[in-house]
């Protein structure tokens, strides 16, 4: 999605990475694990919550 938006430009990707405290872009699997947790019974007392998976971007 991001690669398409920026025509796969490496410079643009580097710029995005520099905005993320963890210093990298997320991978689909990073999101999938969060979704798995919320879908499973392990989160049975969680409802109406938000799970932010953003490498620390919104903690700034």
């Amino acid at each position, binding site marked *: 999605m991001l690669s398409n938006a920026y025509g796969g430009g490496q410079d643009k990707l580097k710029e995005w990475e520099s905005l993320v*405290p963890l210093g990298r872009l997320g*991978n689909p699997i990073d999101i999938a694990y969060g979704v798995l947790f919320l879908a499973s019974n392990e989160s049975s007392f969680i409802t*109406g919550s938000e799970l932010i*998976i953003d490498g*620390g971007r919104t*903690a*700034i």
Partner: protein
Amino acid sequence: MRLSGKVALITGSSRGMGAVEAELFSDEGAIVIITDVLETSGRNLASRLTQQGRNVLFSKLDVTSEQSWIRVIKEVMDNFGKIDILINNAGIYSTTPIECTSLEEWNKVMSVNVGGVFLGTKHCVPYMRKGGGGSIVNLSSTAGLIGGYRGGAYGSSKGAVRLLTKNTALQFAKDGVRANSVHPGPIDTDMIAENLSTPEGRSASISRIPLGRIGTALEVAYGILFLASDESSFMTGSELVIDGGVTAQ
């Protein structure tokens, strides 16, 4: 196993939620250092889990004492050579109204609930950095997100934990050290046993929870496990609210 080979220190884990975390983490392959000021129950828990073939040990820790932290972390490094996971779980509860709260009580709540997190973070981070990273999970509360009609010290301390977590996340992201906070709502543990001791108290608590029941310690422990594990490796500075929907209202 989800924490295979990881070394995890959990504060306040002789009983209650911390003990459930210790059991779950060791089940998932972690080496767990159970720490608490409560020595007898901590040693009993450690020996029970050890008999079941789990890799745990108890070390006495007063989270408000810097010397105590230095001694325990040295013990962890001497035994295992690294620390991957720190769960700042130790905490004390107070519902004393502001006007009736002594400065002594205020300071005690702050010292355990915030000072303990600060000291643990300060003394674990250098070793996590040396090991290439780590995960810190700080126990805040829904009382750290919204106000309450009772108390003052507890909510203030948990609000501080929420932002201390974000500062930790940003300062050490470059070192691969992640930090996230967990915000449980009403959970069936000793901490709020008094609130739930009468049928009226219990039904008053439940009436405010959209899911219609009190949560269990295991339901919080699973959230902490997720944040401690590499499954959440792109999460830092986040809040995980486990409250049956209370704060969605």
